[in-house]
């Protein structure tokens, strides 16, 4: 039963990703990408890693993607943008992602009827993750923090230049 659910979620993830890649419109592609990330979260959940699933939803599907959607929406302000947004909100644009997301919800509900919810032998709860990260992998956490520093400084430098140039034009 759980295996069937797993392959179902995998199929949804693949479909949504393929759709995200082929959409011409960035906003539509993002909706599919969010569905794809949700499907991956369900996969983690079914594999016995509820913490990873929650992180996937909170960080990827939640924070990062919402930020993306905001930025894209903000690029279309004004009357023409409003017309475009109305166009985007037509049913034919959101009905397929909606169905896929509903299917994922259904899968989640079906999976919750099983106990324990895991296709693998071991469940990886937050405590295990924390113990691993700050036990044997503590150096990985440190290196990752420096990696983020490098990315942040690089993005700041490149982005800052862009902002300054805009101000000059005014």
């Amino acid at each position, binding site marked *: 039963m759980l295996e069937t659910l797993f392959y179902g979620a995998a199929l949804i993830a693949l479909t949504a990703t393929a759709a995200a890649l082929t959409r011409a419109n960035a906003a539509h592609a993002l909706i599919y990408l969010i569905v794809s990330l949700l499907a991956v979260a369900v996969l983690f959940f079914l594999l016995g890693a509820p913490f990873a699933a929650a992180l996937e939803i909170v960080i990827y599907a939640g924070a990062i993607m919402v930020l993306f959607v905001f930025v894209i929406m903000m690029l279309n302000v004004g009357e023409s943008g409003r017309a475009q947004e109305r166009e985007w909100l037509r049913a034919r644009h959101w009905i397929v992602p909606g169905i896929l997301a509903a299917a994922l919800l259904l899968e989640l509900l079906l999976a919750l009827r099983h106990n324990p919810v895991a296709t693998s032998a071991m469940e990886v709860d937050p405590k295990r993750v924390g113990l691993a990260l700050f036990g*044997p*992998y*503590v*150096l*990985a956490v*440190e*290196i*990752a923090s*420096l*990696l983020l*520093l*490098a*990315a942040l*400084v*690089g*993005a*700041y*430098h*490149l982005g*800052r*230049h862009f902002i*300054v140039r805009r101000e000059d034009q005014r």
Partner: protein
Amino acid sequence: MNAADFQALLPLLVLSGGAVLLMLQIAFVRGVNRSAALATLTLVLAALSCASAVEQAPRQVTPLLVMDAFALLFCAVFCLAAAVTVLLSGDYISYHGDEPEEYFLLLVLSTLGACVLVSANHVASLVLGLELLSVSLYALIAYPNKSILPLEAAIKYLVLSGTASATTLFGFALLYAATGTLAFDALGEQLTATATGRPMLLLAGAMVFAGLGFKFSLVPFHLWTPDVYHGAPAPVTGFLASVSKAAVFLVLLRLFLDADLFRYRILVELTGLIAILSMLAGNLLALLQTNIKRMLAYSSIAHMGYLLLVFMVCIERDNRGLAVEAAAYYLIAYIATIIAAFGLLTLVSARQVEREDVQLQHVSGLFWRQPLLACLLLVALLSLVGVPLTAGFIAKFYLVVAAVDGSNWVLLGALIVGSAIGIYYYMRVIYYMSRKPEQQVSQAAPADGLAVRVLSGALIVIILLLGTVPQPLMAYIRSIL
């Protein structure tokens, strides 16, 4: 972790601490000279701390890193190479204008990535080190972002390198699925025990190799190299060509040695084929270039091809010591030569509008305009050709000996043919340099400071020393293997 662990990790700790200090310094008081000085100090201290860390070697620090004498030797080399890069780029970066300080921070972080890579014996540290190295490099390449060339180069590198990282990661995920472990040595043991089918393992191996081969710019994955070398600021190109490649090569070598992947003949023979392709294609394409940086890019593909030859030699367990020794010597000689060459190109292209663009005619008549600079560049180029008395000769000689030991005649033939082609295009640069200048090209003497000249001179001395008295380094490398 205890005191001994911390002592073994000292170079990495110094680099991380230096990066944080540098960040704080930039946040409070900006100043190119201050940042450059702090970065140089950090890098030199990190290099010196390797001497203290080596007392604890070899030591496994957490499951992620192994600090052995070999890794520490290359940590020291990388830190020194980065310090030289810092000094070479001071003028370059401030010439390009606003906020040059973060450049040095990124360079320190990138060096840290390289040091993590050489000491990684776990997939997690490999991937993190690789990303730290590449992410800093994206920003370094695009740093002078008023001009179009660096931006173009950085975008290309970002997209392609991101794809390569994803491919590597996918390969490792497949390996993990098959073996259930991420440590290199356990991975090797589990590979024989695993029940997973051979096709999946081969696919995983090929994906890992393709991803790392991209970073290492071997032939089917080399398309980014000329564009990125061309567009990046010359000191960054030098760093990318030497430190980043050496680090990726060394971690690949460690993966193969620790996991004993040499028993998979088909995988190793694939590297042999790629080595031959890289040698020939790199050298042939270099013939067609009129831009010196592009030419050096293609020639670096060929050089990495020569180096990859050691993988084939390693098949026989008895030859491994010599092969690794040859690779280590080759890498050190190559790092010194390439950094010297790109440092000198920085000087040649000083005060140009598009400073990233160095064409053959820019060096035309260099012997008559700036004899000292031309002589130094001559030595660097001769070392790349592999002329006796330079580091390049001993390095290539070492490889030939290793190849003869392993009786890899086809590879040896490709190396000789490649080197013969190489002579032509390096000599062409020298020919251009020796032409009588027809009209006085407007270039006045470059305004770069004394430090850069002294440094380039010192690098040339190192190249000549490595080429004339190679025994101490050889003996040291042999003693730590």
